[in-house]
């Protein structure tokens, strides 16, 4: 019962955070002077296309860009009625992209799911790689296994994501015949889901997952190793060994369970970094996630598109963090519900 209470509390804090984040994002998006339309109007004036100016002026009114900033914010989120009544993020109207001349929802559409998919795959990859390697490095600490794992980890941390992406794409394509760029073969784009399409997406996912996950996996592996080593130095381990418990059984039965907690808790730190990584990698690899759209929108001051994507990215990490917090409580009953006493 109290778990349910905690879940509700956690959901509430997430919503409040999201609200603060929306203010922050709106502020950042509006930092550059002017907006897309006023820039366009200035340009049209300069080239003497008066008739087009009128149309742009109309759009400016239509999207309330002529109002003070705080009103724009309220309209954007959907707290206040705009020129067409309540139609903001809350009502499911994500706004209009001036650059592409389409509703934002049409542009991001599929990209949202692909973004979630890419990140989910990367998180899974991190766990699948970091868990065995970290345990192995700790169990065989100060042997070549440990040093090799540490070396690979350091390289993973030090290589910029996008470089790793380029290198892996090149060699993956050359020696393994992996496809270059994109999320699926071109003939499946816009097609309904089918087994072939799923297969194509999965094959295209290999390199991006690897690239996005590597640095996270390296960091996670090092942390797991450190935790496990701490645990292995404790007296109860010595007792277990003295009593003749088999090494593998001893390791998995107690210390691993203890070292596991931070593993789940860490997702809160892991996720923002992964989402960051996926945006960058998507741009480099030309994946149809929201990364490239975000970059384009930011460059051209396409504010509704950029704002929505930033909100979505924030929402993704916040939900991930919330799930990890809930999982943590389920896994470890010692963790108290509710906030920490300061």
């Amino acid at each position, binding site marked *: 019962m109290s778990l349910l209470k905690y879940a509700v509390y956690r959901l509430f804090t997430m919503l409040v*955070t999201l609200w*603060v*984040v929306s203010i*922050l*994002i709106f502020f*950042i*998006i509006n*930092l*550059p*002077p002017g907006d897309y339309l006023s820039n366009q109007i200035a340009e049209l004036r300069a080239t003497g296309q008066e008739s087009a100016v009128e149309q742009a002026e109309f759009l400016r009114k239509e999207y309330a860009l002529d109002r003070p900033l705080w009103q724009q914010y309220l309209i954007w989120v959907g707290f206040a009625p705009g020129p067409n009544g309540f139609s903001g993020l809350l009502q499911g109207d994500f706004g209009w992209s001036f650059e592409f001349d389409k509703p934002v929802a049409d542009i991001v559409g599929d990209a949202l799911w692909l973004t979630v998919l890419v990140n989910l795959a990367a998180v899974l990859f991190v766990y699948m790689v970091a868990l065995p390697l970290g345990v192995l490095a700790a169990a065989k600490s100060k042997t070549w296994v440990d040093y090799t794992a540490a070396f690979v980890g*350091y*390289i993973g*941390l*030090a*290589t*910029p*994501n*996008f*470089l790793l992406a*380029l290198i892996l*794409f*090149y060699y993956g394509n050359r020696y393994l015949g992996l496809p*270059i760029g994109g999320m699926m073969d071109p003939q499946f784009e816009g097609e309904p889901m089918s087994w072939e399409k799923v297969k194509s997406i999965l094959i295209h996912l290999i390199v991006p997952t690897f690239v996005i996950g590597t640095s996270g996996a390296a960091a996670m592996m090092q942390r797991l190793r450190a935790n496990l080593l701490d645990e292995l130095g404790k007296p109860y381990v010595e007792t277990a060994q003295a009593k003749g418990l088999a090494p593998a059984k001893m390791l998995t039965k107690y210390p691993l369970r203890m070292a596991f907690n931070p593993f789940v808790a860490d997702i*809160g*730190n892991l*996720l*923002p*970094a992964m*989402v*960051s*990584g996926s*945006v*960058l990698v998507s*741009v*480099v690899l030309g994946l149809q996630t929201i990364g490239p759209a*975000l*970059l384009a929108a*930011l*460059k051209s*001051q396409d504010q509704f598109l*950029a704002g929505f*994507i*930033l909100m979505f*990215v*924030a929402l993704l*990490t*916040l939900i991930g*963090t919330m799930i990890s917090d809930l999982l943590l409580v389920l896994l470890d009953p010692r963790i108290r519900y509710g906030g920490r006493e*300061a």
Partner: protein
Amino acid sequence: MSRLPDGRYVDDAPYDPDENINRIERADMDAPNWLLVWRKFKRHKLGLISGIFLLFSYLMLPFAGFIAPYTPTERNADHLYAPPQMVKFFHEGEFVGPFVYPRTAIADLENYRWTYETDMTRPMPLQFFCRGEEYRLAGIFKTERHLFCASEGSTIFLLGSDRLGRDVFSRILYGAQLSLTVGLIGITVSFLLGIGFGSIAGYFGGKIDWVIQRTIEILRSLPELPLWLALSAAVPSNWGPVAVFFIISVILGILDWPGLARAVRAKFLSLREEEYVRAAEMMGASSGRVIRRHLLPNFVSHLIASATLSIPAMILGETALSFLGLGLRAPAVSWGVMLNDAQNLASIEIYPWTAIPMLPIIIVVLAFNFLGDGLRDSLDPYED
């Protein structure tokens, strides 16, 4: 020390009635803290090597123009995309000192690219302390002396040349000036904010603490890169390279402080209950003085270690931003800007040397990581 016939030991040193009996017998055991730290750090070989390497790299920065044979914008229109050149010492089995073979570019109209023909008969010796393009040494003195350059009629592209015929090696040296300092400025900003907010939250507690804590949580839960992108997109495009460089470093720092602030706060929470803090307060020290004189020195060394570990993140951040075209812009030279040219696979496949700037990035980031690890391990000299 001598032994008496009855088996007792007696010190031979003459008796000195004025001797200070409080003097410690083994001065090396009572060395100041920094010496102990240094002794322990010396044993961390990887950290030591990394530290020396980084020290040299930073000392090199003002003299980048002297070491580089070309200036970063010097174009060599006859040698576009020239592959790296080897410096040789022996010509036809005979020692002639460092020299290069001259090359001429030939347009390969079939594949539509430049190929280079090396003339193996004419060794062109390198010149030392020679005159080249004018630059400013350490940003102040105008001079044209370079450490080495190619003699008239030949070129020296140690790491090849890029799309516009600019020397990649020289550009890497110049790029280091921006790429390496970005982390320092960023970490300064992050330190000021982190220590400021962290100590206020930890020392005063209560409502201020709550507000700062929530701010930290929100900032930490957001992905950094999209925010970096958004903030740097807001930098006006008509700003000069120096201003852009500065603001980018500040942006990198602004999003980095929450982690530091959290660590500082945790330390303050436990330290503010200590007796010496109470004593200082009772003697009428202001909060600012207690924080600065009594609390901060306690863990300044830990802060330095954690700073060393977060500089690489900033260097990588700058590289990523510049790579995407939202960081430093073209007339400025940084490693990220250089990699911007190597963005597509085709150019890397045909001209692999354009991707060379990634090597210094990887090496520097690794060096900072090793140095940070070494510092962290050696900061507690009494702990084994």
